[in-house]
């Protein structure tokens, strides 16, 4: 099994455009999805990220704490996934019911694993 980092990206918060009734539906179905993957051992972690933070860069020898969200798109959370390969990871992510509620972009990146070292 390989590990994958799934970055949940979105512009604004698609959930904010839902009515309370739809938000309830959303939390129930996405919650059930995450729970199912946790129970099957595919989901190792699932966390939201605060919409604040900072971007630390070193420029010309000194640190700059800059605004972190210079683009419209932000990373609002992540999943840590276990799957046989990228194909399986991608098909698991396509089942995420959040896609039914607004525009989301989920980026799946295999965690690099160099044989014999990790």
């Amino acid at each position, binding site marked *: 099994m390989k590990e994958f980092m799934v970055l949940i990206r979105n512009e604004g918060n698609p959930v904010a455009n839902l009515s*309370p*009734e739809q938000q309830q539906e959303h*939390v129930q179905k*996405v*919650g059930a999805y995450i729970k199912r993957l946790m129970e099957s051992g595919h989901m190792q972690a*699932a966390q*939201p990220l605060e919409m604040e933070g900072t971007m630390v860069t070193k420029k010309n020898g000194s640190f700059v704490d800059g605004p972190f969200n210079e683009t419209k798109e932000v990373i609002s959370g992540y999943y840590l996934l276990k799957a046989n390969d990228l194909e399986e990871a991608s098909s698991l992510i396509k089942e995420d019911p959040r896609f039914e509620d607004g525009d989301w972009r989920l980026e799946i990146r295999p965690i690099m694993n160099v044989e014999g070292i990790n």
Partner: protein
Amino acid sequence: MAKAVSNTEKELAEHFFRNEYGKMVAVVAKYLGTAPIETAEDLVQDTLLAAVEHWQRHGIPDNPAGWLYTTVKNKTFNILKHEKYKHLLNEMMDSDESESVGFSDEEIADDQLRMMYACCHPGIGEEVQLTLILKILCGFSAAEIAAAFFTNTETINKRLVRGRKKLKIAELSLDSIKLTASTDVVLKSIYLLFNEGYSPSKKSRLVRTELSLEAIRLAKLVVFHPMMTHLADGHALLSLMYLNASRFEARINEENLVLEMEKVDRSKWNKDLIDLGLAHLENAQKGDKISGYLIMAGISAHHCIAPSLAETDWHEILKLYDAWLKLEDQPVIRLNRAVVLSKVFGTEPALVELLALKSQGKLKKNHLLYLTIGELYLHSGELDKAIVHYKTALEVCQNERDLTFLNKKLETAVLISKTQL
């Protein structure tokens, strides 16, 4: 690492988010005093978003309402610490209210009542009142309200902008509510809300049934508030809504068409709702005031308790209509009374009454007037006149579902007239 989701399956109560939205806005708006109502709405929206984020990953907490209230309370205090609202926080500390800041059931009920009266401020038009109630107290989105009212989201948003400006929640104390006469307005809004949901429509039927249920929920908030000592009108309204709602499902067939009275399966009526309706009717009759609600509830009750259509006590119903006319002489009441008149005294006097309404130019645009006249003519065998009136009904009818029904009526009448030739 995220904690594993708890093993016990927890389900949120139906409409939990929506109902809690309304409760939280009412309470938060009080703490924010004169701040715009949008600030309270935004805070509550943020709280629900936080709940979505956490609960989907960690499961529903043991006490979801407690989770929401703790979160929204913290968010409210954070806002109050801002320079702009510091005076509100100071006032609160001075009045020692801070110790009791919480979300007790009593407090929520009080605040929802205050919010209801604020939404029904006499300076706010009826349409806007209903829109405010649905958005702020019931937690519907603008899009959902638009679907229920057959209009677009933009119109609803405009109404909300207009309405929010006129909301004067900060000025209302429970004592001041007691002194105002606006309970009538509040009850009327609830009644309108119920009717919005009750008049069946093909489109978004679910949302509209919800409106009726919300109306009942709001009426209970008013009637059962400890401050309201025997609100006869309120009991009458609740009775009316329960009795009508008890027949809600049974009156619609599989194709979502409204059934004619004789075709309704009475065994499908909701017995529990009928009992609730009758209990409130008894309560309402203890008052000394005869209201439109009381009369309508009485009429509805007679239909509900009749074992069959043939055994309906039309005499008593006619008496109630007569009393209603004395209270308010409306053409549409006369129209409905004429149907009862035909059951008691036959088609002749009913036709006289309806033709009088027609010649006075009343209800010119109401297809039900022409439909009823058509029905009575059909009954008395005057097919030509029946057909003429069915046709007029079709011309003025705006409602798609009734058009289908009227077309069927017309076809049948035409068919009968042909076989008779």
